[in-house]
């Protein structure tokens, strides 16, 4: 029996009929012809699968050849066949008829079988009848040639959690480094009296509002929570998470550099900076721990060190979470995008309103965040930009190799598909139940 006929080898989905046809051609050799009546259960099962009727494999698993040939419509009205059939067994019965006719032909070995063919294959495609006329000549043995047509490859997105872990460790290192640098820089901030706040245009127009920074931090926390929920619902969360960690890590690394090389004075006289420690390592370590534990937020009371002004970490987090939530959520959720945008914009405005950062800090932070995000995603989405070439300047950035390592196996734009974060199947322990499908 021919196993070469599977739906993969042909382009058309109506290949069932074609499949059937060639199957018949292949079985037209006399050696195969009378096998239908002598099939074992296994062969019956194989035949059912070949015909695309594998739903019957289970209930008919004990049927051998003759039993198969003796199925009637009444059998399909009783369980277990009634449960799996969608058309009352009509299609299967037709195919069984065909098998019988083959058997009949073999017995009779006459040309009048063609007449039978045409009559009995009304329900099938006409080509089936024609080919039978061609192929059913006595003793004509036809070889079946398998034409392997490759399936159109759908892009695969391997999760590669290892790489996500590497990106996470990188982000963590950058965070820790930032806190260490903050505590180092804190020692160097000139006191308010010696170095008054620098002139700033925004501060000239807007007076300080005390509660504004709390709003900014609440907005930041809301955006962060929304992003985490969204990330857990994404199907390709490992890839997207990897990107987020890498970009956050790099932005904080840049921030370390800019904070360290030049120290800006405090932006407002309202600042209460912790006293300087002058080389007391233990206390400095404790401050670092406290800052990490509190996430650098003033609400949690961990942000009482000064000097980390250029550029603003709050702006980075607000902008980045907004960009990511917008990027990896469905396009039609415009209300959600606008809501996040409002949260982000209000947060940025409140940072300045609270006189907690200079305007330059916020502007530079916004600029660097957006450019890095767009740069990374443009490179990741275009295969042509991932390779070095004369015209591709994107590869001139210092983090190009790290980027290649992370995004090497991501072949295309990551689709926005969602799934539940953990499988509900863990709660099910019973077997799979079939339901009756109504088809017209």
């Amino acid at each position, binding site marked *: 029996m021919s196993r070469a006929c599977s739906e993969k080898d042909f382009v058309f989905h109506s290949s069932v009929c074609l499949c059937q046809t060639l199957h018949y051609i292949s079985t037209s050799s006399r050696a195969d012809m009378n096998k239908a009546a002598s099939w074992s259960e296994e062969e019956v099962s194989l035949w059912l699968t070949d015909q695309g009727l594998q739903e019957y494999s289970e209930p008919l698993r004990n049927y051998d050849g003759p039993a198969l040939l003796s199925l009637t419509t009444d059998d399909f009205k009783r369980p277990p066949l009634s449960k799996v059939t969608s058309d009352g067994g009509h299609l299967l019965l037709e195919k069984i008829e065909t098998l019988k006719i083959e058997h009949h032909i073999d017995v009779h070995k006459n040309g009048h079988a063609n007449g039978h063919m045409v009559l009995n294959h009304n329900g099938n495609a006409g080509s089936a009848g024609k080919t039978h006329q061609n192929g059913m000549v006595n003793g004509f043995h036809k070889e079946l040639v398998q034409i392997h047509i490759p399936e159109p490859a759908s892009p695969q997105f391997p999760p590669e959690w290892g790489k996500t872990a590497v990106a996470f460790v990188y982000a963590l290192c950058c965070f820790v480094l930032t806190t260490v640098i903050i505590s180092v820089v804190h020692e*160097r*901030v*000139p006191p308010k009296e*010696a*170095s*008054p706040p*620098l*002139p*700033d*245009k*925004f501060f000239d127009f807007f007076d300080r509002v005390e509660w504004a920074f709390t709003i900014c931090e609440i907005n930041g926390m809301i955006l962060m929570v929304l992003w985490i929920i969204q990330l857990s619902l994404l199907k390709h969360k490992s890839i997207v998470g990897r990107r987020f960690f890498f970009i956050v890590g790099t932005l904080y690394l840049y921030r370390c*550099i*800019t904070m*360290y*090389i*030049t*120290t*800006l*004075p405090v932006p407002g006289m309202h600042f209460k900076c912790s006293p300087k420690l002058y080389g007391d390592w233990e206390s400095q370590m404790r401050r670092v721990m406290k800052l990490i534990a509190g996430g650098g937020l003033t609400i949690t009371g961990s942000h009482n060190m000064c000097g980390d002004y*250029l550029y603003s970490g709050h702006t980075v987090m607000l902008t980045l979470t907004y960009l990511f939530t917008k990027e990896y959520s469905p396009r039609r959720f415009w209300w959600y995008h606008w809501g996040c945008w409002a949260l982000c914009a209000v947060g940025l405005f409140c940072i300045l309103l609270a006189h907690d950062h*200079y*305007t*330059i800090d916020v*502007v*530079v932070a916004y*600029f*660097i965040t957006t*450019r890095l*995000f*767009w*740069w990374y*995603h*443009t490179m990741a*989405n*275009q295969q*042509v*930009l991932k390779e070095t070439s*004369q*015209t*591709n*300047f*994107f590869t*001139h*950035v210092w983090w190009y190799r790290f980027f290649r390592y992370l995004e090497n196996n991501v072949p295309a*734009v990551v689709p926005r598909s969602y799934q539940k974060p953990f499988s509900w199947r863990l709660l099910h322990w019973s077997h799979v139940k079939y339901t009756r499908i109504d088809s017209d």
Partner: protein
Amino acid sequence: MAVSHLLDEQEDDTPNGGYHMMVTIEDGSRPQTTPTGRPHPSPVTSSGDQVDDSKSTRLARGFSKALRKNQDYIRIPVSRSIDSLLPAEWWKTGIAFIWAAFNLVLTTVMITVVHERVPDKSISPPLPDKFFDYVPRFEWAFSVTEVNGMILVALWFIQWLFLKHRAIVGRRFFFLQGMLYLYRMVTMYITTLPVPSMHMHCAPKLYGDSQGKIKRVLQLVSGGGLSITGSHLMCGDFLYSGHTVMLTLTFLFIQEYSPRSLLWRCYHLICWFLSAMGVIFILIAHEHYSLDVVVAYFITSRLFYWYHTMANNRTLRGSTHNYLNRIWWNRVFNFLEKNVKTTVPCSFSWPLLPPSAVFKNPCKSYSIVQSAQD
């Protein structure tokens, strides 16, 4: 007659080298006629002599018979030369130049405005800077920077003059320069940094004396903002550093629009050296904070790479997955680069000769190719 048409067409090459095969489809049912009076380079003479006439008739007939065997002529378009892909469009360069000049003038006005707001050295001492902690100040260092800058600008100008597609390249240079100075205006204005070092002598503040301010603006513009020319008296333009911008930008352009052979690579190395030295000497002279230099380098290089990647990859321009389209100057970019269909090749030509007499200096040296039959 098909024959003469064909021969005429072949003589008729257009100067830019693009030509196409003729299109006519000869109708076999037409009776043969001799070519009448059309001059063609075949051995048929145009004399009216009887003998010659019959000879020409015979030849023409033979010719047309041969041609009639292949009666359908298929048009094969030969690709256009590269000139049509890179139109000059000097008017766009003019617009870019106006944009750059406008931004330069606006920057000088902004420097004058900011100068009034710089806190005094006694009130706001110089901010702590890591580089200044390690490296003491050298007075002559800033002159070195400015000399380097002038050399680089001169080199770039000469190179630009000799480029074949100088309109396109010039446009890009002016646009980027204008954009960088625009960003610089914004950063200078919103927050004012104090002077980096106690040695700096800032000109006295004018407090509303508009005439004096205008005079200062003119002085700054005419001197190009350099200390050597004595025009750099005003303080407050620290973040970010304009000197770094010019040094970096000219180097990037020099490197990009010149050949890649070994000799030229030495030239690139020299220019890189000049540029790097210039930038470091700014810091050694304590004329700018380290932050100013770092931010300037970052913004210049990123903008340059961004622009050129967008310009060189046509596929990016319409793509929905291209985040580069979200940049705010995207429309201006499309306007400037719409008709530039391919990467600008590095080819040189004499600046004053007409375009037809092009002196081709190959960017890559050719070597003799061994054919397989040898």
